[in-house]
């Protein structure tokens, strides 16, 4: 702020001025539709999801298996090359129990976003999704818990990440 200006003359408004109708207001709802091009690697990954397969790609240099796949290894700066299919099982790396939605609505049933290290993928190649069917209550989720993907019925899939409904804990005695 310039030395010569010690305050901005202005008219400040409070929320009450609007709610009590003291000032006129015009609401506007911009139409902010967008389409994001998935590209070759993620496009193939999403098409794979529709077919019930989790496709990953391997870097020919460092041998890391990247999921979701990308065209270039960000460690080696070389094009990735070899497509592999991963089983829909893995380990919880980190998670959060959310009782509030993104738009600050309170949730009756908490949702549990988690980063999952899929079996066969490089360590650190986190796969973000929800956990569900966590019995008896969400608080039993633990880092290191083994989980498996639960798929949407094939005819309802839309080539989106939500073709996997969620991950659920693998019960004792199962592989």
């Amino acid at each position, binding site marked *: 702020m310039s030395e010569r200006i010690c305050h901005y003359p202005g*008219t400040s408004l409070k929320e009450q001025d*609007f709610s009590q109708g003291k000032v006129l207001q015009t609401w*506007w709802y*911009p139409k902010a539709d967008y389409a994001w*091009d*998935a590209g*070759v690697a*993620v*496009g193939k990954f999403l098409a794979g999801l529709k077919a019930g397969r989790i496709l990953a790609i391997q870097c020919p240099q460092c041998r890391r298996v990247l999921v979701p796949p990308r065209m270039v290894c960000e460690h080696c700066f070389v094009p990735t090359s070899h497509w592999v299919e991963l089983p829909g099982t893995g380990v919880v790396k980190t998670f959060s129990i959310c009782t509030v939605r993104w738009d600050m609505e309170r949730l009756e049933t908490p949702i549990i976003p988690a980063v999952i290290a899929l079996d066969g993928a490089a360590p650190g190649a986190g796969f973000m999704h929800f956990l569900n069917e966590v019995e008896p209550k969400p608080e039993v989720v633990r880092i290191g818990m083994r989980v498996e993907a639960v798929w949407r019925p094939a005819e309802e899939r839309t080539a989106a990440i939500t073709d996997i409904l969620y991950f659920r804990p693998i019960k004792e005695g199962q592989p």
Partner: protein
Amino acid sequence: MSLTERLHFFHQAIAWKGDIALQSRYSMGVAGERFFREIKDNGRLMATRCPNCGYTYLPARLYCERCFAELTEWVEVPPRGKVYAFTVVHFDLEEKPLEKPRVLALVEFEGSDGGLIHDLEGVAPDRVEIGMPVEVVFKQERNGSILDIAGFQPL
């Protein structure tokens, strides 16, 4: 090598579609507040006149953008003017053809500079002329926005 991979069919291209929930609330400012209150409550157009350069602002402004003088002199402008410019619109914002073309006109009012842009109704699009005398049609029910004006119609 995947960098040489190509999509060979159109249906292979996948786009993720979404929409961003946005809303904005606009308040008209000190001069705009009075300008729209006058339209809402009294159905009249008010302008502010610059004491320094004599320019008359419609819609009303608080400061003269030519000489930075504060504008405190309010004058009523009769709701009759002349078409300064117009365009005939055949498509909506989503590029869908309109059933009936809209005529949008910039109208200048006597005794003021500036003007208002709004629908010009009651005249066939091919009959509109620059300089045509028109008047403002106020809505019966008004809530304080430019839409309190239904549009212009020929005199």
